[in-house]
């Protein structure tokens, strides 16, 4: 990430790129599996994480860094149940 001020009205595509990198490079997040999608009214974050705490942390860190960008999140928490099926490979 750069420390450069990206300006009051930064191009959406650069914001998207910065968020994508923040999600991976911010040690408090470190998620490579989150997709940032630009919708008309907001940036939407999609993906799956290991805990509700990590999901909250993602939103917190992104809105902290981009307070003026409307963000919505559609991030799921992955289940850790035993499988119900076995794949047979003859």
């Amino acid at each position: 990430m750069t420390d450069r001020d990206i300006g009051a009205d930064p191009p959406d595509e650069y914001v998207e790129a910065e968020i994508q990198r923040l999600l991976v490079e911010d040690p408090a997040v470190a998620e490579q599996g989150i997709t940032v999608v630009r919708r008309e009214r907001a940036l939407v974050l999609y993906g799956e994480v290991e805990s509700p705490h990590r999901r909250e942390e993602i939103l917190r860190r992104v809105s902290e860094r981009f307070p003026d960008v409307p963000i919505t999140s559609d991030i799921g928490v992955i289940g850790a149940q035993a499988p119900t099926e076995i794949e047979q490979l003859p």
Partner: protein
Amino acid sequence: MVIRLAAVGDVHLDEDVVGRFRPALEELPECADVLLLAGDLTRHGTEAEARCVAEEFGGLAVPVVTVLGNHDHQCDQVPQVVKVLEDAGITVLEGNGVVLDCAGGRLGIAGVKGFGGGFAGRCASDFGEPEMKAFVRTTTDSADRLGAALRSLDCDMLVALTHYSPVPDTLVGEPLEIYPFLGSYQLGQAIDSAPTALAVHGHAHAGTERGTTPGGVRVRNVAHPVIKQAYSVFHVGDQLDTDQVSPIGQSGSQRSWS
């Protein structure tokens, strides 16, 4: 006779999730002879996170065999991470293999983390700047070590374990633009250089479960966000003739951490 494998990758453990997998893991002996972990065991590759992995995946009733992932390299503590895992009885593979005596026969597992580079016709080349050549040579070296490890194992069934993907099939769902960061065809070529029965990988969180190498070896992406359960179970019945597998070499060549 059947060999029963359980596998999961990309569990990205840290203190906040310790204990989540354990109830399902306690059921393993009922359905599997071994548990394979396909790398990205941790979030940042710290020794503390490795201890979470040891707590979650140590002391199970079945052997646990793993490769590391790119996340496990993030904090440059690979030797410490490996030591914590090995102290917990977990076998860590990187360019070597292990043979396990299972009820259904001798299971040989060869593993490397692997690396990116892309897939046939759309991949990086060993050409140009030193950085580019270093990138491609990292992949080539990793694939060479995987191939050699696979061919060295004396066993009844051979399984390849990687973090990066050997085929594009299991990346479907990921943006095409990032395929070169998700795997390399050279890993597939290495897998096809031996009578491999199954290849298991992780890393592609948004990918797809099933694929096949050009040589016809079945590939499974077991990244936790893909399988959405504690682990997947495969019962592989495909017994190899012993003379199809090279009898040369030993089952546990030396690890090559530096």
